[in-house]
C-alpha cells in the first residue's frame, strides 16, 4: 500500500474516478491483467523466466526513460529527441573499445559516459545559453549523431561485447536476477533519492513548474537545465552499453526505437510533457507496460500490420487516461 499512498491524503477510501487518475495504480493493474491475458493466450507467458526476460528489455528502456523523465520534469517544453542516437553511439563505441575483451570494460564504460556527457553538454548549452527550443536542438543533434554513426562504422568492425558484460545483462547475477535488473533498481533508487531528497531534485521541480519564480528565488536555472540534459545523455549511454551486452554485437541504429518509446513511458507513468510534476516510479511501470504490450502482440499470430494497428489503438486508449489538458471553458 505504501506504493499507492504517496498522493493519497489520509486514509479515506478513493473513488473509481480518482483511482483512474493514479497512473501508477492503473499501470500496475494493467500489467497484472496483461500478464494474465498473455498466460491465457500462450501458456508459459507469465512464467518467472519469461517475466525476467521482459524485465531485462524493460530495464533497457527504463534507463533511457530515466533521463527523458528528468528533462521533461524540468519543463519549458523539455524533451530529448537525441536519446536514440546516443544509445546507438554508445553501443558502437563500447563495442569498438571492448572488442570482446573483459579487460577493456572499464575503459568502454568511461568512453560511453564521456561521449554521452559531451552530447548532453552540447544539447544543454544550445538550449540554455543560445535559447534554442529543446525539440529543435535535440532533433538537430540526432541528425549529427546519425552522421557520426556512419563515420564510426565505416571500415571498423562494429565490435563485440565482452563476455562479462553479456553475462551481466542476461545471466543471473545476484539472487537469481540478472545484473541489468539490479542496475535498473539502482537507477530507480537513485532517481527517487535525487528527486525527493536532494537540492537538485527540488530545483528540478521548481524550474519545471515556474521557471521565473525559481529564478527569482535564486535557483541557478541554466546550470540545472544543462545538468538535466547531461544526465539524460549519460543514462542513454549507459543503456546503450547494456544493449550491446544484450545483443552481443552492436548493429546499425539499434537505438532508434528508444526516442519516442521513452517519451511514451514517461507520459504513461504520469509525468505530463508540460513538466513540473510526476516522478520516476510511474515511468518504471510505464516502461514495463510498453514492453509487456509489445511482447503480447508478438505472441499473437496476426502479422506485423495487425500488431501495429492494435498497438497504436491501445496506446491511444491508454493516453486517454493521462496527461489530457484542461478544457478551455471552465
Amino acid at each position: 500500500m505504501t506504493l499507492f499512498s504517496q498522493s493519497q491524503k489520509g486514509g479515506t477510501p478513493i473513488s473509481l474516478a480518482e483511482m483512474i487518475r493514479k497512473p501508477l495504480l492503473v499501470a500496475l493493474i494493467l500489467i497484472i491483467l496483461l500478464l494474465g491475458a498473455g498466460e491465457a493466450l500462450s501458456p508459459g507467458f507469465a512464467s518467472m523466466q519469461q517475466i525476467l526476460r521482459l524485465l531485462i528489455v524493460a530495464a533497457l528502456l527504463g534507463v533511457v526513460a530515466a533521463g527523458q523523465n528528468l528533462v521533461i520534469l524540468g519543463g519549458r517544453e523539455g524533451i530529448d529527441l537525441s536519446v536514440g542516437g546516443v544509445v546507438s553511439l554508445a553501443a558502437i563505441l563500447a563495442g569498438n573499445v571492448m572488442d570482446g575483451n573483459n579487460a577493456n570494460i572499464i575503459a568502454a564504460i568511461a568512453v560511453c559516459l564521456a561521449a554521452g556527457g559531451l552530447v548532453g553538454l552540447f544539447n544543454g548549452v544550445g538550449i540554455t545559453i543560445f535559447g534554442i527550443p529543446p525539440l529543435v536542438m535535440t532533433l538537430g543533434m540526432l541528425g549529427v549523431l546519425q552522421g557520426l554513426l556512419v563515420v564510426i562504422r565505416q571500415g571498423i568492425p562494429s565490435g563485440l561485447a565482452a563476455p562479462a558484460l553479456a553475462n551481466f545483462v542476461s545471466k543471473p547475477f545476484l539472487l537469481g536476477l540478472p545484473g541489468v535488473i539490479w542496475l535498473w533498481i539502482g537507477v530507480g533508487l537513485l532517481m527517487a533519492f535525487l528527486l525527493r531528497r536532494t537540492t537538485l531534485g527540488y530545483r528540478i521541480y521548481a524550474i519545471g513548474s515556474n521557471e521565473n519564480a525559481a529564478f527569482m528565488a535564486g535557483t541557478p536555472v541554466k546550470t540545472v537545465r544543462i545538468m538535466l540534459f547531461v544526465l539524460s545523455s549519460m543514462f542513454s549511454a549507459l543503456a546503450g552499453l547494456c544493449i550491446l551486452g544484450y545483443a552481443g554485437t552492436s548493429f546499425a541504429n539499434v537505438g532508434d526505437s528508444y526516442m519516442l518509446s521513452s517519451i511514451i513511458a514517461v507520459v504513461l507513468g504520469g509525468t505530463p510533457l508540460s513538466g513540473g510534476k510526476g516522478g520516476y516510479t510511474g515511468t518504471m511501470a510505464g516502461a514495463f507496460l510498453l514492453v509487456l504490450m509489445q511482447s503480447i502482440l508478438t505472441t499473437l499470430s496476426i502479422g506485423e500490420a495487425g500488431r501495429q494497428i492494435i498497438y497504436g489503438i491501445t496506446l491511444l486508449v491508454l493516453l486517454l487516461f493521462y496527461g489530457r489538458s484542461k478544457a478551455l471553458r471552465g
Partner: protein
Amino acid sequence: MTRSNSFKTQAAATLRRFPFLPALAMLALLLILNGIAEPNSLTVRALKGVISTYLALVFLSVAQTFVVYTGDIDLSVGAILSFVNVSIVVIMSQLGSAPHQVLIACLAGILIGALCGLLNGFVVAGLRMQAIVATFATSILISGLALWVLPVAGLPAPSLFWKIYGGRSYGIPNVFFFITVLIFVLAVIAKTRLVTRLLAVGNGQLTAYQTGLAVTKIRIAGYVVCGIFSSFAAICITGDTASGDPLVGGAMTMSSVAAVVLGGTALSGGVGSAFGSAIGALIIGLISSLVFYAGTPSEWQNLAQGATILIVLMLGVLASRRINQ
C-alpha cells in the same frame, strides 16, 4: 541610437509580415555555394533532380506547418505519406491505369490523407491529448494500415504516373510547374481566414477562445489540411519512386519538422509561413547536394549534412529572436 532602433523595429515588422525572408537568403546563399563548388549543379537538369527528389519533403513540410501554426505538431505525417502512397498504388493496380482511373486513385488518396488528419485532429484537439505522444500513437496505427494495404515494397505505379512527374512540357521539367503552382496556392491560402485563425489560436488558445473562436474546430481543420498536403507529398513520392513502399515516409517526419523551423515558423505557434517551410525543405536538399559537390568523402557526408543543418537551425532561431527583440 534612435536610427538603429527604428531600423530594428522596421526589420522586425518586415520579418513579421514575411517570416520566410532569412530562409530565402539562406536558399540563395546555398545556390551560390553549390554553383561555386560545381557550376554544373545549377543547370536545369541538376536542379530538376534536386526538386524531383525533394518535392515530397516540400509538400510534407508545408503540411506540418498548418499544425505548427497553432503550436501543435504532427509526428504522423510520414506514416500518412506511406499509407497514401501504398493506397494509390494498390488502387491503380486494381482499377487500371487509364488517365481517369489514375485521377480517381489520387482523389481517393487525398480523401485518405484528409481522414487521417481528421483522426489526428480528433485525438489532439477533440480529446485534448498531448500532440507529440498522441500523433506518435496514430503514426503507429497508420503505419499498420499501410502495411496491411501493402505488406512489402515494390508494387510498381503505372507509367503514366512517373512519365508526368519526371517529364517535360514545352521543354521545361514538369516539377518546375508543380512547384510554381504550389507557391501560388500557398500565397492564396496564406490570405484565407483559416490561416489567420490558426495563427490566432497559436498566439494564445485562451485569448482566441475568449474572442469567440471555435478553437477545437480550428485545430482540427489544421490537422485535416495537414493530412491533405501529406497526401500531395505521397503523390509526389509515387511519381519519384514509381512504386509503393509501406515504409517510405518513416524517416521524413523529423525532416519536415526541421524544414518548418528552417523556414522561420516558431514551434510555439503564432508566427510563420508555409512558403518558408517549402524553402526550408529545399534548403535541406541543397545542403545535401552541397555536401556532395564539395567532395566530402562518402562516409562523412551524413555527418557534414547533420552538422550543417544543426548550425543553420541554430542560426535561424538566433537571427529571428535578435530581430524580434
